[in-house]
Structure formats: structure tokens, C-alpha cells
């Protein structure tokens, strides 16, 4: 069986970059992912667009909407990931999606389409109470089901959730008080520490990381093994009034910056 890149992640300062497939168009999306891949981040998360992304903020919602505008199909997204995997070296490929997408496509067909080049999958709305069948099929094909832990997950639940976890753990850093996007480093550190006591796989912090400074601070002030950047990568497209060429350039600059 093929090696899973997630099993050989670096020991620290792991960088994971999230981007929505097919955003803003399928062709432009290829260019964006090629740019991202050329920086060889440790992980790329491929978001599969969904009409009702209820766990995502307004920026990723908008990216989903743009991607779906031209009726992008699940197959097209998976083909895009396959195409990119040809230039893949040590970068881990992870799919992030909602359960209805996988269900409707068919779990077995889905796995058949991604095995050998996708290392992990995050199904945002699949709680661990419901995961058994899916986890089993994924594990047979050496694809890791990545677990999310939120500040609301208590210790007892974390223990159950983290049992046999593989790849990495996605710690959702935003505790969220409306309007406040400030990262609470103390809370993050406390929770990351507690997770690390229960599991040996790397803990990555995601949600609300926007700049080089945020990345540096996470590594300085917390015990996290890595960071996930998503919305901030997409935000630039709207900041630049959807000027694609300028966006690509700014993306290059930004990724260089956050590779600390």
C-alpha cells in the first residue's frame, strides 16, 4: 500500500493551506492550486464546494458560491485534485467537505476516486458518533479521517474522540464572540496542551489565523505543532476586487510570508 504523507509530517511548524476547489472558476482554480503547490506546504486542504456550508464563515461561503456558479461537479473537483497530485512531492493532500457530498457521490466511488493520492479527509459535519462505517472504509484504503476538536469539547469527549486518531488533529481556535476575531492564545495553549496529553499526532490550529504575525504568535505562545490558513487566502481575492492576476501575485507573496 502506498505511503501516507501525513504519517511523516515534520515535527513542528507545520503549515496547512486551505483552498476551495473550483474557485473562482475551474481554470483559475488550477492556477491557484499550482501556485500553492509550488511552495510545497506540508498540507493542502481541498475544500469541496457545498451549497449550504453551515460551518463556514462568509468568505468561504462566497468562494463556494462562485465555484458552484458554473455547476462544478464533485467529479470535476476530484479530477482537479488528481491532476495536481501529479506534481505532488511530500505535501499531504487532504479533502475537506460536508457529508452530503460524499453520501450523494457514494462512499465507495468517492474513495475509489481519491485513493493513492489523498492522504486525509475532514468531514465537517460528521461527528464521531456517526463515523464508524466511513472510518473503516477509509482506513482500508490508507486514508486518515481527521478529527476536529473545539473549545466546547470537554475532556471526556476529547478522550473518546481522539482514540486511534491519525494524521493530525484540527483544533478549532475561534471560541467566538460575535465581532471579535481575536485569538485567545491562553485558551488555545491550554487546550492544545490537554489534547497533546491524550494523543501523539500533531495538533494544528485553524480558524481565525490571518497573517504572518498570527502564525508567529501561535508558535511562540502555544504548543501547537502547526497552523491552518483558509479564509485569509481567499479574502485577498475580494480585497483586490476580483482581479485574478493581481490575486495570484499577492497569494505568492502571502504564502512566502506565512512559511515561517
Amino acid at each position, binding site marked *: 500500500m502506498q505511503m501516507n504523507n501525513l504519517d511523516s509530517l515534520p515535527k513542528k511548524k507545520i503549515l496547512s493551506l486551505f483552498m476551495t476547489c473550483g474557485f473562482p472558476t475551474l481554470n483559475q482554480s488550477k492556477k491557484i492550486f499550482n501556485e500553492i503547490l509550488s511552495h510545497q506546504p506540508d498540507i493542502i486542504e481541498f475544500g469541496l464546494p457545498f451549497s449550504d456550508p453551515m460551518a463556514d*464563515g462568509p468568505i468561504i461561503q462566497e468562494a463556494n458560491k462562485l465555484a458552484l456558479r458554473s455547476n462544478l461537479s464533485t467529479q470535476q473537483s476530484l479530477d482537479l485534485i488528481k491532476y495536481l497530485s501529479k506534481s505532488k512531492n511530500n505535501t499531504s493532500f487532504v479533502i475537506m467537505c460536508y457529508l*452530503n457530498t460524499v453520501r450523494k457521490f457514494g462512499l465507495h466511488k468517492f474513495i475509489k476516486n481519491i485513493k493513492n493520492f489523498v492522504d486525509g479527509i475532514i468531514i465537517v*459535519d460528521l461527528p464521531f458518533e456517526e463515523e464508524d462505517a466511513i472510518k473503516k472504509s477509509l482506513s482500508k484504503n490508507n486514508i486518515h479521517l481527521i478529527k*476536529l476538536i473545539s473549545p*466546547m469539547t470537554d475532556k471526556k469527549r476529547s478522550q473518546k474522540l481522539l482514540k486511534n486518531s491519525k494524521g493530525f488533529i484540527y483544533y478549532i481556535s475561534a471560541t467566538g464572540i460575535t465581532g471579535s476575531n481575536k485569538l485567545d492564545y491562553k485558551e488555545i495553549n491550554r487546550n492544545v496542551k490537554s489534547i497533546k496529553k491524550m494523543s501523539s499526532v500533531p495538533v494544528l490550529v485553524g480558524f481565525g489565523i490571518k497573517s504572518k504575525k498570527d502564525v508567529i504568535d501561535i508558535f511562540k505562545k502555544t504548543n501547537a505543532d502547526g497552523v491552518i490558513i483558509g479564509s485569509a487566502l481567499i479574502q485577498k481575492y475580494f480585497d483586490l476586487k476580483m482581479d485574478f492576476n493581481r490575486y495570484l501575485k499577492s497569494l505568492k507573496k502571502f504564502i512566502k510570508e506565512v512559511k515561517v
Partner: protein
Amino acid sequence: MKTYKQPNTVGRFGEFGGMYVSETLMPLLLDLDKSYKKIQKDKKFKKELNDLFKNYVGRPSSLHYAKNLSKYINGPKVYFKRDELNHTGAHKINNCLGQILLAKKMGKTRIIAETGAGQHGVATATVCALFDLPCYIYMGSKDIERQKPNVFRMKLLGATIIPVESGSRSLKDAMNEALRDWIKNVRDTFYIIGSTAGPHPYPRMVRDFQSIIGKEAREQILKVEKKLPDYLIACVGGGSNAMGLFYPFLNDKKVKIIGVEAAGRGAKTEETAATMTSGTPGILHGSYSYVLQDNDGQIKEAHSISAGLDYPGVGPEHSHLKNIKRVKYFGVTDKEALKAFQTCSKLEGIIPALEPSHALAYLIKAFKNKHKNKVVILNMCGRGDKDLFTAAKAIGFDADE
């Protein structure tokens, strides 16, 4: 038949239901489930709720024999369960009172809700005023436009209305935004879901609070007719009024039960909200149930003249009842509903909301000159005041003149 006992402990109605939400919400739902189970055994809670039902809502709502309509149909004896006479003009208040008492017990200090027709928004704003809690209502901008009287009502009651511009700008999108608000404000916020939809324990909790409708109707009909009804009919969007009426009758095998969905411009067209006639099982808003979706599982936009039924999903218990064939579901078009809206107003002196007008339309159509000597209970779950402008426009009456 085995005694009906749904859902199971993890919120499954047969294969439907469940909790499909992100890990930020899971702990909250489990906590809510625990608290809900606790208050079910709490006598003080029950007493408080019953007292509010009686003195604040005006329950029990009456069971009215619709003589003129019955004569017009020339079929069964039709009774209306008149939940449109409730305070705030619809059945929604039953559930809101239950949930806000629970929110109080859980120490929550901020209330959010989604609304389509505005009836649930008004009911939520009402109970928030009564219990002095800040209230935020998510409402699609399309619905704000077509339900203006209810928007003003909510504002008068002190609620903040947050217009939702995403997607089809109606109920589905309002629910997405309310869920996002909840994810952001998990610690202090209680989300009052207005329908038997969403993740467990909502479908069960909302059904339980609404089942006062069926309990009363059962007693009332036994008193006047000395027997159980032959048919129950109610409209189904998310399905709360219908579950409320149906639930206490599910074990009465002889009672035939009919749910009426909004077929918009026709169940076979793209412009429909008839989820169970035109949809397939999928996951929306945290539960597995019938939904309107394409081949890739993207949720389609629904269409109905009635904002309260304009939803591409349906409560998981309805999906289960459809699959076990305990309830039959039919679609009724905008046009048919509008006609029934006028017929009922003229014949009974009751202006129904556009939602129960769908149930009325089915009754008139399917029972005409048939089923004589039978008894039907139709859930008159809301009054039509909020729909006057929409209906006037659709009928071609200039309401400004």
C-alpha cells in the same frame, strides 16, 4: 402494530434524523438533550408551561365544526383545530414557550431564531419580550419583503431582525445563518428552532411541545363525535404543526393521516417545495431526511407562495412516517392553495394562512363528493392576516386602493 416509539436515544426516527453538525455544536446539542430529558420529568416545568398555555396562549384552542365547508365539499364532516386563535396567530407559540422555559433553566441569556413566514419569529420575539431576553431573528430578505406585517410585529416586540442575503434569501438560508450565529456564540446563546427539523434533539423536542394540539383534538373529538376521526390533515413545511396534530394519533391505526406539501408551480417542476414528493434522502441542517437536491447533493432552492412552506427539507420524523407508510404525503400548487384560501374565507368566515390553505386545498380536491359519514380534523395552524398583501397581489386585487 407495535407501539410507536421514536426517536431512539441518538435521535433516529428509523433511519432518519441524527446529529450532523460540526464539533463546535456537538457538545451543545448533547447538553441540550440532557437538559431536555431532565425537564420532561420536572413537574414544576410542566405546571409552568401548562399555565402559560392556558392563560397566555388561550389554550385549549377550539375544535370548530366547519358546517358550510362540509356542505360545500359534500363529503365528510370537517372540523378545524383552531390553533390560529392562539396568541400570535399560529401554532408556533406552543413550541417557543417550551423552549424558552428550557433556555431559562439552562441559564442562557441570548435567544436566536430563524423564521420564514415570520410566525415563528413573532412567537419567539413574543416569548423573549415576556421573559425579558434579547432576541435576534434571522430572516431571508425575500421573506422580509413578502411578510412585512410580521417584520413590524417582531420589531415592536423588541427583536432585532437580521436580514439574510445568501442563497435563495428564504427560510433555508435563515437557518444556515442562525446555525452560524450559534457556532460563534455557543456559550450564552439558545437557538429556538421553530420546526421539527434540524439536529437531534430539536425534531423530538419541537414535536413534543406541539403535541398539545393533537392531545386536545383527541379529547375534543371524542367528546363531540364519540369516536376518533377517520382522517387528519395538516400542511407540512418543516412539519411542526403536522407532527403536533399527528403524534398523539399515531398508534390509532384506524385514523388515516395526510400531510400536504407545497408543490409551488407543480411537484414535477423546478419551482416546488414538495420535499417528499420530489426529493431524495440527504443531509441538511444537521439531520438526515428527504431534501430537494441535485445529483451532487447540492441543495436546491425551494419555491412556494407560502413563506412558511418554502423549505427544501422536511423534519426527519415525516420522512420516517412516509417510509413506514403511516402518513401519506401529497403536493398542492400555489394556485390551488390560493383558491382554497378564498373559499374558506367566504364559507367559514375564517381567513386562513397560506400554509393551512394548502391542507384545505387538498381536502376540497380529494374529498369532494366522497367519504360521506366520515370525520376529518384539519389543523388550522395559522391565520391569514400576514398573507393579505401576498394574496391580494396574487389574486390581482389592489390592496392600496
